[in-house]
């Protein structure tokens, strides 16, 4: 009997595998391909206090081993989310983690307070790291003082535990992780996408209308593993690791680096069954090496 449960801020997940925000909608689209009951948690697309239209197209571009996106956090707003998306997810035996975005602290507070009434929501993931919107988001995630400030403020308003999603576009990830922990964050998730650019040499223009975008996919995995390791060395709160995870072996690498759970992001696009294959891949690894409890893997490489 394999023990695959992990615990994030008092929330027990049946296994350490979840979806990465923005790559899985609110679960409905991929539920045609995978049984959401198999996942530790579903992390939703970022939701703001009001609907956001997002950026002009092209919003996505493929690069070697990955992709760039500049969606710009298009979302239908918290009311539609609560009336339509949340009831859909509540049908499944998986934990619901809602990703929250905003332009101002007040925007975040409004969403966090609204979600406080939703008992089905297990955790809130605070997006302070989207590189593709001009206001808010990453403005809070690239300076330790700003990250401390918003974390401390949201902790006053949140009923659910807070997961602060960190940006890799910083000099010292350990300093950012410590700032979030000191301000009361219950967990961290990292990494969000790495800022990048692609130029179309035939048309002599930017591949994305937004010019810059966030790089994701297997191309960023070594950067993500390094940052998860450094953050895990810096703090005691649990870490959700992500960045290019395609299979169980990739997921185990993040666990060994110090992550308590992992998220599958861009690889859902390359393989709509990726999440469940990661669940099965971790179990296969555990059987291969006689690991009884997945928690034995967390931070086992120091």
């Amino acid at each position, binding site marked *: 009997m394999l023990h695959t449960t992990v615990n994030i801020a008092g929330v027990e997940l049946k296994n350490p595998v979840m979806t990465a925000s923005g790559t899985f909608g609110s679960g409905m689209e991929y539920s045609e391909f995978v049984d959401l009951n198999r996942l530790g948690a579903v992390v939703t697309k970022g939701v703001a206090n009001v609907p956001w239209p997002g950026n002009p197209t092209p919003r996505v571009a493929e690069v070697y*081993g990955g992709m760039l996106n500049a*969606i710009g956090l298009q979302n239908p707003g918290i009311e*539609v989310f609560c009336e339509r998306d949340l009831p859909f997810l509540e049908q499944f035996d998986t934990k619901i983690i809602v990703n929250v975005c905003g332009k101002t602290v007040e925007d975040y507070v409004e969403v966090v307070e609204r979600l406080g009434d939703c008992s089905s929501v297990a955790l809130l993931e605070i997006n302070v790291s989207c590189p593709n919107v001009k206001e808010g988001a990453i403005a809070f995630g690239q300076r330790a003082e700003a990250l401390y400030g918003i974390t401390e403020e949201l902790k006053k308003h949140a009923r659910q535990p807070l997961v602060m999603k960190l940006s890799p576009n910083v000099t010292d990830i350990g300093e950012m992780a410590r700032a979030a922990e000191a301000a009361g964050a219950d967990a961290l998730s990292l990494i969000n996408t790495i800022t990048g650019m692609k130029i179309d040499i035939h048309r002599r223009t930017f591949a994305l209308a937004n010019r810059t975008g966030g790089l994701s996919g297997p191309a960023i995995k070594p950067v993500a593993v390094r940052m998860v390791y450094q953050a895990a060395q810096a703090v005691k709160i649990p870490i959700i690791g992500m960045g290019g995870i395609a299979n169980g072996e990739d997921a185990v690498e993040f666990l060994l680096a110090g992550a308590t759970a992992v998220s599958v992001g861009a690889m859902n696009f390359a393989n709509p069954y990726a999440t469940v294959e990661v669940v099965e891949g971790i179990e296969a690894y555990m059987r291969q090496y006689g690991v009884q409890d997945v928690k034995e893997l967390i931070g086992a490489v120091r």
Partner: protein
Amino acid sequence: MKKKETAVLLSQEKIGPGIYDMWIETSLAKEAEPGQFLCVYPRDKSTLLPRPISICQVAEALKADGRNTEAGSAERRGRDGRGALRLVYRVAGKGTAEFSGYLAGEPVEVMGPLGNGFPLEAGRGRKVFLMGGGIGIPPILELARRLEAHKQIIVGYRDSNLFLAEDLEKQGELYVATEDGSAGTRGNVMDAIAANGLDAEVIYACGPMPMLRAIKRYAESKGIPAYISLEEHMACGVGACLGCVVKTVEKDAHSHVNNARICTEGPVFEAKDVEI
């Protein structure tokens, strides 16, 4: 129901400069409608994303006694198995370049059928234009095969390489335009309408954005509906990533903003509903 499966390549040939004609055996043929598309996954692991390719022709699987198609053809062999789909595509990068090298018998990873397809009821029994430009021509073939109407098929090419024209002329009155004037009307599909004095009650179209903009203006000036198939860079193909949106005149029912997902609410939109 959408699904991803391993199809088998039945045949492939080059039918124009950089343009390939592929038949694959796949159970996705059972539910495929004209105007829908497939995501095709390259094997090259440096390519993360599937390639969206429109469905050119559908051959549903036949029961054992229903064999009436040309013996030995890829279409026939597909019908004997799971059913078959024809994909006609242009090599645009390393993913499609990889596909163009596939040989009969090789596996092809596909997901679909995706998107809404053309609304057949809008044109049934009416006088219609079926318009295709360049690599937008392929989905017009299955539409022409399935639509019962007075069909005027108007297709625009760069030059006298008139790929799919032989298939199209079996489905209705065919009018050709070429940019270099080497066949049909010199110019584009709009020039072909004018030169032949054509009119219609409903338009269906797929092609490059300047052509679709011209058709939107033409349809508005004539007060007739035009159903246009759009394309945009896509990632997931199933409506999750919000990469491939088009601006809409009204707020979209799913997004609650003036953006609709081309992969899910589209790729076919009524021209008056979108800002292109």
